[in-house]
């Protein structure tokens, strides 16, 4: 992972503790961790999917 799924910025460049307090808690990832592209996200009652046009789809565990 290179980029923050919440804000899309470089994980190593800045502090992402505020992002971590929301990501996976009340927000699904919006940015691809590999390329920082905005993903197409579908939230459903029991989970979510997030699709990057370059790196494919990821989904929630539940």
């Amino acid at each position, binding site marked *: 992972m290179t980029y923050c799924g*919440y804000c899309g910025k470089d994980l190593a460049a800045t502090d992402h503790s505020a992002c971590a307090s929301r990501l996976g808690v009340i927000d699904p990832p919006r940015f691809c961790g590999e390329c920082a592209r905005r993903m197409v996200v579908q*939230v459903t*009652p029991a*989970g979510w999917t997030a699709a990057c046009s370059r790196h494919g789809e990821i989904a929630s565990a539940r």
Partner: protein
Amino acid sequence: MTAAPEQVDVLSVAREQVLEQGVGLSEEQVLEVLQLPDERIPDLLEIAHAVRMRWCGPEVEVEGIVSLKTGGCPEDCHFCSQSGQFPSPVRSAWLDIPGLVKAARQTADTGATEFCIVAAVRGPDKRLLSQVRDGIKAIREDGNDIQIACSLGMLTQEQVDELVAMGVHRYNHNLETARSHFPNVVTTHSWEERWDTLKMIREAGMEVCCGGIIGMGETLAQRAEFAVQLAALEPDEVPLNFLIPNPGTPYENYPVVEGPDALRAVGAFRLALPRTILRFAGGRELTFGDLGAKQGMLGGVNAIIVGNYLTNLGRPAQQDLDMLGELSMPIKELSKTL
């Protein structure tokens, strides 16, 4: 020299007026409740819970919601990450029919009696209504008899009639905030346009679901104004949301509503709306955490959205179902809603 009039405690008034007679508090009275000091919050929640038990009963209505059409909305509701007018990271997406059927099944499996299909639009076009019609048909063909609600923005009379014909039993259209504050929150349509849709829904025989969001910069007086404006509508259900400051929206840096303020709002809205289904909706996870959610359930709330919301995540449904079990609150059964 005349003696100063004795100050009457608003909760004593509520006990007689709301609990005994079932008459909601006035705007001035709601404002007094919203201004109660923190040490009176337990008293407020106790009476709000008693009102809920007396006029609504012990059952809790459980609902799941799903976004059929996400993002790209032409409206500028300042709280919403789905507006196409703001630099939100939310991208447009359509849920296909199998996905909708699966979401309805996931919701029914929690024991929920309500499933609300939501779209981020000003109002539905033919394509969206067609998708809703096909989706409802597919949900029924899946053997799922959960009650279906919709939230598709502002409607024409023809569209209202179409939704009734599809079997949609409840329609959500939030007024969002007090009439006096609405122009600060939305500029692309008016509070009155929303009100007109709500009137058509009621007259067509659908149940009216209408609530809003606490924490969008409104004053306490406007919060009280909103509560009585909702009461005047006589909605079947009021979903109470607390602002989630979403990135890219004009409200991204607004503070999260503090727990005590949120509990005062819960109690005050129950005392303004003694007979209405009062639903915990979005933002409660940020505002309350686990403990506060229980306090809210014991403070007048009698319905919850379980699982995720439209673009934000909620708690896993089982956590909320376990909470209701701990509180000995029975979940409303589908057979009792038909």
